[in-house]
């Protein structure tokens, strides 16, 4: 008989205070508590982290890489969102 599959969890680690949690990989575990323990053993054996998040992989909604053109197109044409779009006379100094 095939065994039931262990749920998959994505692991995020904050390496230092002041930094955001960053995706480092995934683990299989029966529940959240065991996922945290597995993540600690798998991804922080050398002091890589101060905090771990685990999220069920199935709970993540991702954008489609094939659609990245239309999805991100609106930002490409809006150059007025960048400071260099605006001309300030040199006499005014750094702004």
């Amino acid at each position: 008989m095939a065994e039931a599959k262990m749920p998959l969890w994505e692991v995020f680690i904050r390496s230092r205070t002041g930094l955001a949690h960053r995706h480092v990989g995934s683990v299989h575990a029966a529940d959240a508590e065991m996922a945290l323990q597995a993540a600690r053993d798998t991804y922080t054996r050398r002091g890589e982290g101060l905090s771990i998040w685990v999220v069920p992989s199935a709970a993540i909604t991702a954008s489609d890489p094939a659609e990245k053109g239309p999805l991100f197109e609106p930002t490409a044409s809006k150059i007025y969102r960048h400071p260099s779009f605006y001309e300030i006379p040199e006499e005014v100094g750094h702004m």
Partner: protein
Amino acid sequence: MYSQALNERIEGPRIVEDPGKLAAFQARIDAEERIEPNDWMPEAYRRTLIRQISQHAHSEVVGMLPEGNWITRAPSLRRKAALLAKVQDEGGHGLYLYAAAETLGVSREELYEQLLAGKAKYSSIFNYPTLTWADIGCIGWLVDGAAIMNQIPLCRTSYGPYARAMIRICKEESFHQRQGYEIMLTLCRGTPEQKAMAQDALNRWWWPSLMMFGPPDSESQHTEQSMRWKIKRFTNDELRQKFVDATVPQGLYLGLTFPDPELRFDEATGHWRFGKIDWEEFKRVLAGHGPCNRERLAARRKAHEEGAWVREAALAHAAKKRARERAQRIAAE
């Protein structure tokens, strides 16, 4: 370790790919872009990677066995702690790699099933026995040394999740090699018996370590495609030569001799030239007839079967806890 998988023929139905998509894919590879899990990729690229990454993962997991053999017999607490940490790392490396393979649409359970059924391969080196403590030194120094030589270029392999796993693994392997060399150094500076033990281990591990890089380029017909896809960045023979050049001076420093009468330094090229490798032995071991093939698989199967009730209990406990929490939520509403 273990680019041995790159030399095999890919099985399965031949798939005719859209030439436009193939060209766009190759252009991305040529531009050194990383391929990510949801990107379009040729079926043969996917299959090559699944096979290579899973064989690499299996090698890490099976690789725990020859060393695990010595944990309870390590000569000091310091050595025991280091060996435990090393074996735990190998388990971790197996997990990073299974996770990378899973991003290609195959489950860890399927991959594990292939290993336990004897359908998947792992590095030939782990089918040799660890007879003395000096073998633990040799494994760290030579086997992990060869692995590092193979793995450093894999940090730039074209598939993103594999490259990222390799970066983590390479960072950790350096300790493995150094602790192995330190064991060898201690033995070589010890009693004549200890030095003889170190020499005996080197005699047994040298040639199998050279075989870890896989068959010679002249017989490795699939290297070319893997190089074009930038899965692989150096050929087997190039990596083997790099390993020999790096390792021979380390062995001479230990005051040991290599079991190769043809080994000599070539002044003109700056390379160490070595004798002929016994490829018949390599083929025999890969085909399942090495000294420990049966024992290794039997140990993995036993561990898997005896752990089944734990996995089952953990899932049952999780289901019960979820049901209880749901009932409490409903009661509170």
